């Protein structure tokens, strides 16, 4: 990968979209990349739409603005498809990754004439079954890694555990379920 990959996350407050963007930054960092992971801060409320961003590149990126033409868009909460401009600026050769039990093509009518690639992953179900709570961010993160190829999958798995130990230094009990959820999500993503 020589070019910069830019990713925009849409989630709702409490779902961990910000944490997912930081974990992706961690994982990419661990494979030697230059990274940026940052949220857009608005009203901090449970359930309110939030946006987070990643830039991943081989050289330090000096830009400190939001991402308007992402390579990938990640929808952590499918109800946002009709609430935000999900595919706004999305590059034609990129893709949108949606947390949904549906097939990718079933969601195309919600995407305002978007003609690019669509991927789905039932991250909510995976999170409930493997982590015990509907916190879909880590399964979504795993789907992003598979779809974007921004990090080699084996390196990603090797690094995730270490990253989680960094991020959840004070909550070790959440690490194991998250790792199971990640592996399952990597197998179950649809639209590849």
């Amino acid at each position, binding site marked *: 990968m020589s070019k910069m990959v830019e990713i925009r996350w849409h989630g709702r407050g409490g779902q961990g979209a910000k944490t997912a963007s930081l974990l992706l930054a*961690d994982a990419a*960092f661990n494979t030697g990349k230059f*990274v940026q992971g940052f949220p857009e801060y608005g009203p901090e409320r449970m359930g309110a739409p939030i946006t987070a961003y990643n830039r991943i590149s081989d050289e330090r990126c*000096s*830009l*400190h603005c939001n991402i308007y033409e992402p390579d990938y868009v990640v929808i952590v909460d499918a109800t946002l498809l009709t609430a935000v401009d999900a595919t706004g600026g999305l590059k034609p050769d990129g893709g949108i990754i949606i947390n949904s039990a549906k097939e990718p093509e079933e969601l195309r009518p919600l995407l305002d004439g978007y003609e690019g690639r669509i991927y789905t992953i039932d991250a909510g179900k995976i999170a409930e079954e493997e982590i015990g709570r509907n916190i879909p961010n880590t399964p979504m993160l795993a789907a992003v890694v598979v779809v974007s190829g921004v990090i080699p999958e084996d390196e990603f798995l090797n690094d995730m555990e270490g990253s989680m130990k960094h991020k959840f230094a004070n909550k070790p009990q959440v690490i194991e379920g998250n790792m199971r959820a990640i592996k399952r999500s990597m197998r179950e993503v649809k639209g590849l």
Partner: protein
Amino acid sequence: MGIRERLSGNEAVAIALKQINPDVLAAYPITPSTEVPQYFAQYVADGEVDTEFIAVESEHSAMSACIAAAAAGGRTATITSACGLALMWELLYVASGTRLPITLAVVNRALSAPININNDHSDSMGARDSGWIQLYSENNQEAYDNYLMSLRIAEHKDVMLPVMVCQDGFITSHAVENIELIEGEKVKNFVGEYVPKHSLIGGEPISIGPYDTPQFYFEHAYQRAQAMINSKKVILDVSKEFAALTGREYGLFEEYKMEDAERAIIVLNSSAGTAKGACDLLRAKGEKVGVLKLRVFRPFPLEELSKAISHLKAVAVMDKADSFSAMGGPLFTDVRSACYDLKTRPHIINYIYGLGGRDVRVEDFTLVFDALKQVVVDDRPGEIYRHVGVRGVQ
């Protein structure tokens, strides 16, 4: 070679403070302060520092406690943001007037009202006349590096002034990016021991901060102003020593593609990186544009800055704070004044931008560079007090 890490700007400052291991850190522990006191409190709880951490009930008290601790002879630090800095105002002058080398990490955020928690420079720009040295930082690396240098500058015998190290709220304070940290032992050697010349705790019985009658106040004010003049050389000397340690070079400002530039943007903090992105795009089209990022705003590098821009045809000075003077922002008025004595000088216009966290895009800077092109064609500045990024305003 340093330690490769990825950290937010707040984490970077917290680690700098951990490595410095100050004698006293007094800070307000919740909003409007930053995450830094929270991280630092963890270091204290884990025994990683032996700092006396004072969680005070307000920012006014935070600076008061720092002043007392510094007067007692301790190496003293604090952190704040936005209205927290505003609440310190009265004490900022006491700190500099008492010549106490306190260091303060500022995470730049807007002042209310309307209520807003996001980035602009209203807080530190309001404090620009308080006798504090001000260093500005483009990213987490510069926030870390500047902080490590700040106490060496503050504590120098020719300076003895407090220093604030600024970075942009959320944009860099909450963004995780790569950073190269310095090994703890090297930091320890670089910052050294602080040995105050006079202190309340010590051999000599002294008073600090008594009433200064008209027979003496003016002389002390003059000495404080001289110290600010002296600080420029000290900043450069400390930066040179830091470069020898890390390979990272810092001056009073950074010149990006300025050598043959005809038009340039002058800007502080995180947006400098975005301006460089716009500069690269236009350079690829053959346009002679550059970016000057000011690192040291107080003291203002009058001679060096005016010389660096004297060859340009047009300059846009970007202010992420308004002075409400009806003639432009604080950086603009200083830059423009600095150029008055030049034999040839560029046209200089001002843009107020990014207030209250308005995202500052690459396109905003290409628009400013385009506007400068028109200034060059017209050979006159036109309207000098402009805005970019405000809906409905050109």
